[in-house]
């Protein structure tokens, strides 16, 4: 079982399209679109969202929303849900947040970690120089790994790294970028041959560095 995702948008096309896009990177994750009103207009429907939450209930549900009233409808639906505490609303951009959440759910992360993966997309990138100021303590584990796959760091590897790390209890930076943020990793624009310097702190620091060593060393399973 994995965490299920519900997409609440004013537009049925947006909800369907975002779900379709995210499903491409997370084939085993149930992603339910709940867009538009009952009669096919632009808007949000409590009934549609409640039905999706019902269908998604089980191992935790994370909800992604678009504009204002989608958030309010999702909050209302969550209050009516059989187990309101199992429904988490992610405060994240819909498309990027959904993709990051789907990737995290695919790797088996729990609902809180899936929500966090979505919201990590939102956080402004920390400038490496500032990051060094913040991390006064030496990291618990480090490693340097060379990108060996042809395409280097693109969307799929970034998603794998961010997804896997979001399920671990560790703060990880990769060349200064937040390892749990797919967008920050992609912004490194690291090509084949680039050495990734990994610094990890927290209980799962060694596990996180080991995870990156295997992932990068195997070329993310790509040529």
């Amino acid at each position: 079982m994995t965490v299920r995702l519900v997409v609440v948008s004013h537009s049925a096309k947006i909800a369907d399209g975002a779900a379709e896009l995210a499903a491409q990177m997370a084939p085993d994750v149930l992603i339910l679109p709940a867009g538009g009103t009952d009669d096919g207009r632009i808007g949000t429907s409590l009934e549609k969202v409640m039905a999706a939450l019902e269908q998604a209930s089980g191992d935790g549900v994370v909800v992604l929303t678009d504009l204002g009233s989608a958030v309010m409808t999702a909050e209302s639906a969550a209050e009516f849900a059989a187990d309101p505490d199992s429904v988490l609303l992610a405060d994240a951009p819909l498309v990027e947040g959904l993709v990051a959440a789907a990737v995290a759910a695919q790797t088996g992360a729990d609902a809180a970690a899936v929500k966090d993966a979505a919201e990590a997309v939102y956080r402004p990138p920390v400038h490496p120089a500032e990051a060094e100021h913040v991390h006064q303590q030496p990291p618990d584990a480090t490693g340097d790994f060379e990108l060996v796959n042809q395409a280097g760091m693109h969307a799929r590897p970034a998603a794998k790294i961010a997804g896997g790390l979001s399920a671990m209890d560790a703060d990880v930076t990769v060349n200064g970028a937040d390892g749990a943020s797919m967008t920050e990793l992609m912004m490194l624009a690291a090509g084949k041959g680039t050495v990734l310097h990994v610094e990890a702190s927290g209980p799962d620091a060694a596990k996180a560095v080991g995870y990156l060593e295997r992932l990068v060393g195997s070329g993310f399973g790509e040529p």
Partner: protein
Amino acid sequence: MGLDVGWAVRWLTLSAQAMAEHRVELIELDRPIGDSDHGENMDRGFKAVMDKLAEAPPETPGAALKLTAMTLMSKVGGAAGPLYGTAFLRAATALGSTSDIDAATLATALQAARDGIVARGKAESGDKTMVDAWTPAIEAAAATAGDGDVRKVLLAAAEAAEAGAVSTDPMLARKGRASYLGERSIGHRDPGAVSSALILRAAAGAAE
């Protein structure tokens, strides 16, 4: 004499009539600062409420407001759905199973409705939203509840809500779709504050 389920049904019926009568006005208000669907959405929502009331006549005022809450949340479509839905739901919860609402209970229920809107929409006074109609309304209700006259409470709330709606004209929108317009939202009246004043005026009319 307090307010009974007959009052609640009359209130909702007068609200539905007001939304139908002011549909175009609310659309015109929403056009420059929103997505010009508020009049349409409110009219559709309250028409659906009328259908539900006819299907299953409620036995208490609280039951009537709860039915209204669920219907508006499902049928309105825009932000007004969850906002008014939460307002009616919280008011229904505050009323419980009472069949005779006194002035103090009425003021408490109106306060619960306003608090529900604030909790759902996270707007504060001065943000150019329906909260700017509801907050003066509940203050006026609380100030008059001591006299024990429910009609006086409802009239005071309606008048304060109407003044509150007018007070949104010079405000800079900080919540909802209008907030994307920034300075350009100044000089327009908030459609949610206007529909709130209409609904509270209907509540007073139903008690006459």
